[in-house]
C-alpha cells in the first residue's frame, strides 16, 4: 500500500518528452505460437529515459514482448521502432538494446570483468577504455573489486548485478529486464528494487521492466502497462492504474478489488478508501453511505481488514489503519452491522468487463449485461 500519499500527478510524464522520438514504438505487434496468440496486437510508445513496466500474470506474453523487442523472435505482423528507426527485421546483434535475462545468462568461462567487457569487445573498444568503462559499470552496480571472480563464485544477488553491469556498460538506447529479481529472496528483492531505481536515474537509460509482482511495478515504474493474454489492459502511471483500474482484470490483479454494481453501473473502490463508521460517528461530507454486515475481521498488524456484505448487494473488503484511536476490535465483531461510507469521487466506474477475468466480481453482474469497452479487443 502506501500509494495514497502520492499526488495523482504521479512521477514521470513531463512535457519535454513529447517533442522527442520515443525510445521504443510498437505498432500492431502480433506473435503467435501455433494457435496461441502470445502477443495479440500491442501498440505502445515508451519515451526516452522512462522506467516502464510490463505487469501481468505468468503466461500473459511479457517475455515474448521483450524477445520481440530484442530481436530473438520475429513478429507475425506489426512494427518495432527504436529511437525512430524501424528494426522489425533486424537481428538481435544490430539492435541498440540490451537484456538482463531472468537466469542472468552470464558467460561461465569468463571472469566477471570479461563478462562486463564483452559488449565493448564486440564493438572493438580499445582495451584500456574497455577496462575503465567495465570497472565504472561494476562501480555503479556496487560490485567493485570482484572483476577477477568467475560467475560461479558469486551469490545470486551478485550475479544479478553483474548481468546488469554487462548490459548498462554498453549504454544502450533501451534496457530490457525480464523479472530480474525473480530469483532473489524477499529482502534482497526490496534492496535491489531501490538499487535498480537509483541506477536507472544515474545512467538515464530507458528501462523496460517485466514483472508479475504488482507491488514491484507500482513502486518502481514511471508508467506501467498491465498485460493479460497478450494485450494491454491498461496503460498509465502507478497512481492511475491503482486508483482507477480500467477493467475488472486490472482491479483484480492490482491490489484487492472491490467491484459493486449500483443502478446497472459497475464501480470499484480501493479497500483503504472505505470509511467504517463506529456507532454515532459522522461520515465525511460528500460521502455515499450504506449499511453493511461484518463477515470477518482480520488483524494485519498495522491495519485491520474487514470483509463486509452490503445490504444494498455486493461484498467489500475494507482496510483500516490501526492508528491510536482506531485499534482492531473497536468497530465490532463479525455479525454486527455498521455504516460503510466512501467519497463519491473515490468510486470509479469500470468501463468494461473483459472475458470474465476477475473471478471475485463474477457474482455481481448478470452475464447478459456486460458493457463493452474496446470492441475490437473483445473475445468470446
Amino acid at each position, binding site marked *: 500500500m502506501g500509494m495514497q500519499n502520492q499526488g495523482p500527478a504521479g512521477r514521470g510524464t513531463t512535457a519535454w518528452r513529447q517533442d522527442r522520438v520515443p525510445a521504443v514504438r510498437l505498432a500492431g505487434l502480433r506473435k503467435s505460437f501455433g494457435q496461441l496468440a502470445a502477443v495479440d496486437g500491442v501498440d505502445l510508445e515508451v519515451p526516452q529515459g522512462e522506467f516502464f513496466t510490463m505487469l501481468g500474470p505468468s503466461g500473459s506474453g511479457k517475455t515474448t514482448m521483450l524477445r520481440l523487442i530484442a530481436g530473438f523472435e520475429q513478429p507475425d505482423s506489426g512494427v518495432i521502432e527504436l529511437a525512430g528507426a524501424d528494426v522489425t527485421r533486424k*537481428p538481435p546483434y544490430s539492435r541498440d538494446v540490451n537484456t538482463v535475462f531472468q*537466469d542472468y545468462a552470464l558467460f561461465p*568461462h569468463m571472469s566477471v570483468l570479461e563478462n562486463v567487457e564483452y559488449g565493448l569487445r564486440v564493438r572493438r573498444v580499445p582495451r584500456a577504455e574497455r577496462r575503465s568503462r567495465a570497472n565504472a559499470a561494476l562501480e555503479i552496480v556496487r560490485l567493485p573489486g570482484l572483476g577477477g571472480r568467475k560467475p560461479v563464485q558469486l551469490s545470486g544477488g551478485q550475479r544479478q548485478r553483474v548481468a546488469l553491469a554487462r548490459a548498462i556498460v554498453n549504454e544502450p538506447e533501451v534496457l530490457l529486464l525480464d523479472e530480474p529479481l525473480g530469483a532473489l529472496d524477499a529482502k534482497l528483492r526490496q534492496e535491489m528494487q531501490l538499487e535498480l531505481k537509483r541506477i536507472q536515474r544515474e545512467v538515464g537509460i530507458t528501462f523496460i521492466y517485466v514483472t508479475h509482482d504488482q507491488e514491484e511495478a507500482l513502486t518502481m515504474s514511471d508508467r506501467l502497462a498491465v498485460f493479460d493474454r497478450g494485450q494491454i489492459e491498461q496503460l498509465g502511471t502507478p497512481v492511475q492504474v491503482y486508483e482507477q483500474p480500467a477493467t475488472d482484470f486490472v482491479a483484480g490483479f492490482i491490489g484487492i478489488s472491490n467491484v459493486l454494481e449500483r443502478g446497472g453501473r459497475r464501480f470499484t473502490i480501493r479497500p483503504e478508501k472505505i470509511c467504517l463508521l463506529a456507532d454515532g460517528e459522522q461520515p465525511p461530507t460528500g460521502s455515499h453511505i450504506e449499511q453493511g454486515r461484518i463477515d470477518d475481521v482480520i488483524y494485519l498488524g498495522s491495519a485491520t481488514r474487514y470483509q463486509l456484505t452490503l445490504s444494498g448487494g455486493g461484498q467489500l473488503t475494507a482496510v483500516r489503519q490501526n492508528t491510536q484511536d482506531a485499534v482492531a476490535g473497536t468497530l465490532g465483531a463479525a455479525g454486527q452491522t455498521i455504516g460503510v461510507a466512501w467519497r463519491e469521487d473515490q468510486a470509479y466506474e469500470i468501463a468494461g468487463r473483459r472475458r470474465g477475468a476477475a473471478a471475485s466480481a463474477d457474482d455481481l453482474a448478470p452475464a447478459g449485461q456486460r458493457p463493452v469497452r474496446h470492441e475490437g479487443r473483445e473475445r468470446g
Partner: protein
Amino acid sequence: MEGRLARIGLRIWVGGVLLFLFVPIGIICFYAFNSSNVQSWPIHGLSVKWFSVAWHDPQVRAAFLLSLRAAIFATVVALLLGSAAAFGVHRFRFFGREAVSLLLVLPLSLPGIITGIALNSAFNFAGIGLSLLTIIIGHATFCIVVVYNNVLARLRRVSGSVNEAAADLGAHGLFLFRTVTLPMLSTAVISGALLAFALSFDEVIVTTFTAGAQNTLPLWVFGAIRLGQDLPEVNVVVVGVLLLTVVPVIAAARLTGGGGITRGSAAGPRISGG
C-alpha cells in the same frame, strides 16, 4: 539401531560387488608380473620380463599400431560427424529430426554382432576389401554416438540463453562461436573424444567382422587366449589396454562431471542434475 545395521549391511554388499568386479582385473595385473610362463598359484616369482617380451613381439606391435591408428581415425571421424550432427539436431527444426536423433543413437544399443555382420555384408556387396578403412568405419558407427550425445547434452544445457546473451551484446557469426559457443562446448567435445577413443581401442565384436586378416590388439588377445598361446604376454597386453582405456574414461568423467558441466550450469540459478 535398524538404520545402523542396514548401513553396515549395505557397505558389505557394495564391497562385495566391487570385489566381484575388480578382483579378476587385479589378478590379471598381478599375473603380468609373474616370472613363470605357467599361471599357477602361488606364483613362482616377480618379474617384468614379459613386458619386454611383449614390447618386442612384432605381432603385438603390429596389432598395437593398428589399434592405435583405428582408434585415432575413428575418433577424428566421430568428432567431425558427431559434433556436426549434434549442432544440426540442436539448432534446426526439420522434418524427421526425432528420427535422425534416434537413428544416430541406435548403433550404441544395437548388439555389436548385428552391426558387425551388417557392415561385413555391406562391404562385401560394395566390393570393398576389409582393411584399416573398414575398421575405422565400423568403429565410427558407435564412436559418433558418444561424441553426439556428449555435445548435444551440453548444447541443450547451456547454449540457449548464453548464446542469446552474446547476440544481445552485439556478437554474431564466427566471433560469437569462437568466444562463447566453443569454449562452453570444449570440455564436452574433449570428453566425447576420449570416450570414443577408449571404446574403439578395446572393441572386439564389430572389429571381428570388419578387420579381415589383420589383428587389432583386442583381436590378438582374443586369438591368443583361444589358442592358449603366449598367455604371459596376454596379461601384459591386457594391462596396457586397461591403462589406455581407463585413463581417457576417467579424464572424460572429470571433464564433464567434475569441472566443465557443473561450472557451466552453476552460472544460472537452475541446478541441473547429473
